[in-house]
């Protein structure tokens, strides 16, 4: 049976060159970068090289790169670190309704600690209106955090405009770029953000490693305390295999980026067009153009997401859904509800996220299998006419 992995927004396979260099830094060069002997010096040097690669990928200075345990920690650090550091200025945060839970649940936590949050709505394409950001800013606002590319529906937000507005009012701007970095051009100087989160395993690096970009001069306090690692910004012995791995993944991503974007965009459009041509009563979720190159998210009416996923899995296709059964709660995905989908349409959502290893033949296979599955489920559905 053919196997087609279309869940690259969940995680990507580690690039063989990444796995190879990581192994070297586990088996041979296993030193602690804080040690002064040769082992330690070697680890430190590898870490600083990795930092340069990550910095270069997003147009930052290496000194602005702080390694974390992943995207979730980077988001926690960005929000808690700036909120607590700027408490004398105010206690108000602005974010959107379609953020990842790493942002939403951190905001909820900060609300228990005396902060308030404005959760901006999005339009039907999932876009935040920059004018709404401006309208939400108060004298007590310390941070605006809006994601760059949405993990479910792929919509790219106008971060450049949002950051400019925030700065005009003396407010910091953070973006969760976990889905974008490595798969879409990201330049912190161009975006104008003060903070940016990214994660290794979304672009062929390992799990357990991420980065928070902190622009020089940004007022932030550490949230994890211990030794003086990462210049006192993030305590804990550095995850050298992970750091070396994300460095290599960043180096490869930078070299292949334009090729990746072109390849993913071609396959994505082929998949969207094919689904629309072959299946009736389908709705594309997310912005038609301003979307991540590898993201396809459709609602297939009269069928439920988990049933779709199980059937696809039986045919060797790995995908995901925003249905209640797959969201881990009784409600379908908060992102799909925020773009105004009724519950029954949200339950029938299917997310297919492409990676650089996917081919046109993979798409042909999905387009052959999916309509048949949908037809079978609809024949079983009391909602179908």
């Amino acid at each position, binding site marked *: 049976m053919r196997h087609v992995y279309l869940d690259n927004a969940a995680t990507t396979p580690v690039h063989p060159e990444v796995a190879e260099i990581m192994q070297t830094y586990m088996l041979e060069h296993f030193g602690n970068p804080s040690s002064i002997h040769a082992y330690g010096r070697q680890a430190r040097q590898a870490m600083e090289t990795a930092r340069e690669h990550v910095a270069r990928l997003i147009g930052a200075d290496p000194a602005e790169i702080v390694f974390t345990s992943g995207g979730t920690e980077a988001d926690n650090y960005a929000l808690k670190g700036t909120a607590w550091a700027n408490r004398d200025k105010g206690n108000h945060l602005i974010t959107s309704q379609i953020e990842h839970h790493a942002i939403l649940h951190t905001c909820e936590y900060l609300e228990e600690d005396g902060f308030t949050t404005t959760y901006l709505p999005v339009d039907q394409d999932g876009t935040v209106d920059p004018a709404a950001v401006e309208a939400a800013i108060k004298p007590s606002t310390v941070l605006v955090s809006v994601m760059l590319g949405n993990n479910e529906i792929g919509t790219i937000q106008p971060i450049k405009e949002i950051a400019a507005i925030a700065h005009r009012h003396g407010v910091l701007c953070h973006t969760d770029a976990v889905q974008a970095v490595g798969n879409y051009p990201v330049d912190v100087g161009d975006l104008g953000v003060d903070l940016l989160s990214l994660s290794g395993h979304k672009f062929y690096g390992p799990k357990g490693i991420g980065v928070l970009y902190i622009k020089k001069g940004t007022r932030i306090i550490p949230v994890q305390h211990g030794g003086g690692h990462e210049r006192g910004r993030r305590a804990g012995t550095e995850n050298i295999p992970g750091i070396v791995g994300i460095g290599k993944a960043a180096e490869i991503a930078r070299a292949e980026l334009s090729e990746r974007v072109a390849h993913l965009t071609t396959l994505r459009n082929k998949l969207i067009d094919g689904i629309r041509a072959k299946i009736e009563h389908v709705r594309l979720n997310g912005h038609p153009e301003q979307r991540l190159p590898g993201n396809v998210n459709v609602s297939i009416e*009269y069928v*439920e997401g988990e*049933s779709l996923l199980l059937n696809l899995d039986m045919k060797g296709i790995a995908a995901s859904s925003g249905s209640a*059964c797959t969201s881990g709660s*009784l409600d379908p995905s908060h992102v799909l509800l925020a773009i105004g989908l009724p*519950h*029954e349409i949200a339950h029938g959502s299917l997310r297919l996220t492409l990676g650089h290893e996917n081919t046109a033949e993979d798409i042909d296979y999905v387009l052959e299998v999916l309509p048949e599955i949908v037809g079978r489920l609809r024949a079983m559905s*009391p909602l179908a006419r």
Partner: protein
Amino acid sequence: MYTEKVMDHFSNPRNVGEITDADGVGQVGNPVCGDIMKISITVDDNRITDIKFKTFGCGAAIATSSMVTEMVKGKTLEEALAVTNRHVADALGGLPPAKLHCSNLAADALHAAIEDYRNKQSEKAD
């Protein structure tokens, strides 16, 4: 996550469809929670001689619907009414805990169909 039995009923569901001139029809669930089950029955001499289902829902919803139709086909109405959602789940070798609440309504749909049949019978008697 699902037992082999659940996957068997999910991938080869028994008795899918709708009986055109059914003696009783029952529907439970709603699109908001993501599960709707519709069961139609033919009753002959107090026995369920034919039963079909249509379900919108997850793997557990489809498997439990299929399972309940198999469990009660040929049974008397009293025997069918004694079948509970729990029995259906057990017959499938169990369901993940989260599914016991939201997607385990097949016996309810069956009972609704029987109730519909009985209501129609008493209307006829009147």
